[in-house]
Each structure stands twice: as structure tokens, then as C-alpha cells.
């Protein structure tokens, strides 16, 4: 294949040309096969997890989702406790992380001098690089006790009338889990927001400020308007991460079989319950119930991610139309 014929008219040139083509065809074939395999992998994950859980899905039916029970002794299982834990911890994390992430991104693009912006952006990125198990270790041994001794009594002192902040402070529970999730999604959301803000057309911002608006007014009126769909996608990607995080949450949330309204009390999320069961469940029904939890988590994450992707793709197309 490496020796190209000197005389194209000589006999055998045809074969050689085919030989060259063969290399191209082969290489393209391998590349296509790899791409098909990657696509098939996504389908296979969905298929395999669902089919593993199928006996449990048939056994428990859809009512599994709104049944609040997890009793290996009586072999009664339901997902409501874990769905509730996942939704509440993720919602709190999202409420805290979204404004913080947007503010960090604005600081990096609009306020910080360039020399300061680059190292701070790197540090925020490094926050995402901390392995979740290390963050969980810190969460369980350092952050949890601080939450119990300082943050929770403080919140209780003026929000104690609210059932969410009632009960005894504890080092493992919904609140520390939500805060650890907040730390995990800030770098994701703020990195995307920063990218969006830095791509906002400069002349639009300058125009707004030339008309007399302050920097904040220009940001609110121009930048947010321009970046709104992207911000929505960034928030959804952060949410997907919060839903799916199993390890750090498992370490700090404490584990519980029933719903407790108080944010201070131990709870469980879908991911953390699955992670907690790795050493083997006792009955096949329990294994099925865990896989069923996996299916619920997978569906929630896939929907969140696909919606985020659709928004991003549309946003890109609209941006190209400018």
C-alpha cells in the first residue's frame, strides 16, 4: 500500500488503486463501527438495566414509585422515600448553586481583572476535580459535625417554627447532603455560564452601557436575555449531576427507610441507596427493588440530560443565525 505505482498505465495499477481505496474503506469502516458501538452502548445501558429490573417492575408495578417502604424482613419495598430525598436535596442544591454559579461567572467575565480571573477560574474548575469520595470523607468527618454544632442550631434559632428545621440537629442528614451537592454542581454550572457570558456580543453590552445603563443593568437586560436558554441548560446539567451523585451523598446523608420532613434528619436518595447495597442484598426481591430504583434514577437523569442537550443544540443554531 505504501508503494504507489510509477506508471499509472502499467498493468497492476488498477489493483494498486484498489489497494489504496481498501485502506480508506477499512479505516472508515472501523471509525463507523466505533461510532455505532458508542451509540449502541447507550441503548444497551438502558436495555440491560431495564431488563434486569423487569421482574421487580412486574412484581411491584408502578405503585412502587409512590410506596413509602423499605423492609427487607417483610420483603416490602417502595421508592417514595428515595425519590423524595433525591428531589429535596437536589432542589436545595439547585436553589443555592444557581445564583452562586451565575455570580461567580459574572465576577470572572465582568468584574475581575484578567490577571485575577484566570487563576480563580482554574480554582473553581479544580473544585470539580475533587473526587466525590474525598468530598464525602470531608463531609462526614469535618463538615457534618460543623453543620450539627453550628449551622443547624443557628438555622433553628429563627426558623425553628418551620417543620423543615425542626428536630434535633444531626451530623448526617438531608441538609449536609444538599450542601455537599451544592459544592459539586457550582463548578459545572459556573463554567458553562462563564462560557456563555464571555460569548455575549461585546457591542451589545457596550451599546447598552453607552445608552446610560449601569453594568448590572446591561447584564440583566442584555447578557441574561442573550444567555437565558444556555443558563437553563447549565442549570439542568447541574441538576443531572445532583440527581446522579451517589457516593458523597451516601457518605453524608445517613440513610433512612422512611420520609422525615426535617432537613436535619437522616434520609436517602436513589443513588445513595443503590450505593449502600453494594455488598449484596439478602433476597432476590430486594435486588430487584434496587434495580428498580436504578431504572427510576436512569430515567430521571436521561430526561434531564436530553432536555438540556435539546436546549443547547437549539441555542447553538440560533446563535449561528446571528
Amino acid at each position, binding site marked *: 500500500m505504501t508503494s504507489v505505482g510509477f506508471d499509472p498505465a502499467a498493468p497492476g495499477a488498477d489493483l494498486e488503486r484498489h489497494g*489504496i481505496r481498501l*485502506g480508506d474503506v*477499512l*479505516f*472508515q469502516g*472501523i*471509525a*463507523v463501527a*466505533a*461510532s455505532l458501538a*458508542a*451509540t449502541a452502548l*447507550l441503548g*444497551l*445501558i438502558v436495555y*440491560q*438495566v431495564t431488563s434486569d429490573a423487569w421482574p421487580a417492575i412486574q412484581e411491584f408495578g408502578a405503585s412502587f414509585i409512590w410506596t413509602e417502604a423499605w423492609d427487607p424482613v417483610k420483603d416490602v419495598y417502595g421508592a417514595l422515600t428515595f425519590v423524595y430525598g433525591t428531589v429535596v436535596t437536589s432542589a436545595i442544591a439547585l436553589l443555592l448553586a444557581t445564583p*452562586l454559579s451565575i*455570580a461567580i461567572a459574572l*465576577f*470572572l467575565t*465582568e468584574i475581575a481583572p484578567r490577571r485575577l480571573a484566570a487563576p*480563580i477560574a482554574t*480554582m*473553581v474548575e*479544580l*473544585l470539580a*476535580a*475533587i*473526587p*466525590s*469520595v*474525598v*468530598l464525602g*470523607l*470531608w463531609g462526614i*468527618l*469535618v463538615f457534618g459535625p460543623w453543620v450539627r454544632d453550628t449551622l443547624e442550631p443557628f438555622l433553628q434559632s429563627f426558623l425553628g417554627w418551620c417543620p423543615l428545621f425542626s428536630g434535633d440537629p444531626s451530623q448526617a442528614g438531608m441538609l449536609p447532603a444538599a450542601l455537599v451537592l451544592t459544592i459539586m454542581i*457550582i*463548578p459545572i454550572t459556573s463554567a458553562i455560564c462563564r462560557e456563555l457570558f464571555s460569548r455575549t456580543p461585546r457591542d451589545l453590552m457596550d451599546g447598552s452601557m453607552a445608552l446610560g445603563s*449601569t*453594568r*448590572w443593568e446591561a*447584564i440583566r437586560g442584555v447578557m441574561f436575555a442573550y444567555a437565558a436558554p444556555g443558563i437553563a441548560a447549565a442549570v439542568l*446539567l447541574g441538576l443531572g449531576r445532583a440527581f*446522579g451523585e*451517589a*457516593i458523597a451523598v451516601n457518605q453524608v446523608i445517613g440513610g433512612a427507610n422512611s420520609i422525615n420532613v426535617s432537613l436535619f434528619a437522616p434520609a436517602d436518595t436513589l*443513588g445513595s441507596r*443503590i*450505593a449502600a447495597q*453494594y*455488598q449484596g442484598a439478602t433476597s432476590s426481591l430486594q435486588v430487584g427493588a434496587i434495580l428498580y430504583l*436504578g431504572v427510576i434514577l*436512569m430515567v430521571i*437523569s436521561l430526561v434531564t*440530560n*436530553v432536555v438540556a*442537550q435539546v436546549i443547547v*443544540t437549539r441555542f447553538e443554531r440560533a446563535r449561528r443565525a446571528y
Partner: protein
Amino acid sequence: MTAAPHDDRYDITTRSGGLRRRRITEKVFAGLAVGSAVVAVGILALVLGTVIHRGITELSLDFFTKPRPLFGQAGGIADALVGSALIVGMAMVMAIPCSILVAIFMSEYAGPRVSVGLRVVLDVLNGVPAIIVGIFVFGLLVVGRGQSAIFGAFALAILMLPMVARATQEVLEIVPRSLREASLALGVTRWRTTLSIILPTAIGGILTGVVIAVARVAGETAPLLFTSSIAANQVSADVSNALPTLPVTIFVFSESPDPGEQAAGWAAALVLILFVLVLNVIAKVVAGRQRRKHEGA
């Protein structure tokens, strides 16, 4: 204009109450933005500081050369270091060639629609929670065969694939068209152009993507819990059995009531975090060099 009565709201030459309010809003906004950045950097410093402070006292030669202690004995994390190195190494072998081929297909062969479709597939694959990848490999391979380091590596490879493929595809897109055309015009076949012209040009970006992906999967616990977690406390290179790994060891230690094991957990966390940070710094340096090369060109 002259006939219109003077309206204070539109007069920007005098300091109206409105202007003062707007300036205060501006100050508040700037303060909150600075405060948020301080919070983020502060959390990083706090976590890193704690891990270094609590972990460094445990580090010794024994810690790196001896396996995990049986109850009450002194020991280290040599078994977990060997296991992690083997599993991450195997995951790289599985994921990198496939990822680069997918990226080549996207940038060199696929039309825009197929390419966008594949990008969405990869991004969704990237969004599948690690714990789901864990139970997927558990159901596909572990059930009936038992845990093994190879299955653990396969799970990590699934996480690496979309990261490396997307990073590679993004650098391949910015390789100048003229390079491809020059090579093809000289009669070089397409596949040789790709392998010997385009890939070497993009190698810096590909390396950055690989290093970032390795840093991320080296700290992943969730996929290994179901595939390679129940292992003996000894240094072993038998990849057909489950091997101990650094993240799983930290996970187990973190939930231990024994202060000695907790201390070992901090030290192991320090080792893991240093490894991850060094890889991230390397990625930054490689990426910076690549960018300068492109700007210089």
C-alpha cells in the same frame, strides 16, 4: 424638546434618587459577585487544607509499600495503589482508541446531521450517572461470573469514552482545512492523512482530554462498588479477580468508626487528590502550549 416639561426621570445630568438607587444596586451586585467567588475559592481551600492537614501525618514509606491493615494492625494502601493503577490503565486501553475513532468519524467522515446526533449521544452518555454504569456492568458481566478488575475497568472505560471522544472531536474540528487539502493534493490517501497529519497536529488537545478523563475516573467510586470492591487486603495483579482500589478504600475507611482507619482514609484521600491535581495541572500546561502553538501558527 424645548416645549416638553422637564422630567426628572430622564435627566441623567442631575443625581436623582433613581440614579442613587441604581448605583447602590450596582455596588450590591458587584459585592455579591466578588463574595460568591470568594466562597467558591474558600471551599476549595478548606477541603484541600483539611485533607493535607489530616493526611500528611500518616504518610510514610510503609503507607505506600504495605497492604491494607487487617483489624488492629499497622498497614498502608499498597494494594489499593496497585489495583487502581491496573484498573485505570486497562480502562485507558479500552477507551482511548475507541474514543479517538469516534472523534475521527465525527469530524472527518460524518455529515453535519450525523455529527450533531453523535455529539448528543456522547453528551447524554456523559450524563449517565456513574452508579448506573456500575449496575449496568454488574447486570451485564458480574452476575454469574463474580467481580473482577477487568469489569471495573470496563465500567470506567464507559465513563471515559464520551469525555475523550468529545475533547478529541473538538480539537480535530480546529485543525485547519488547508492541511488536509495539502496532504490529499499530494496524493496521500485519506486514512493516512488522518493518521499522520491530522492526529499529530491535534495531539496536544487529545492528550489534554485523556489526562482530564483519567483524573476523573481515577477518583470514581460508584462504578467500582458493584464490579471490583469485595477484594482481599493484599497486593495482587490478578485482574480476573476483584482488586482493591484507592476510591473504594477511602469510601470504606470514611464510614469506619475506628479513628485509625479514618486517619488512613485521610492519607489515602491526600494521595488521590494530589494525583488528580497533578494531572489537572499537566492538562493545563499541555493545553496552554497547544494554544500558543496554534496562535503562533
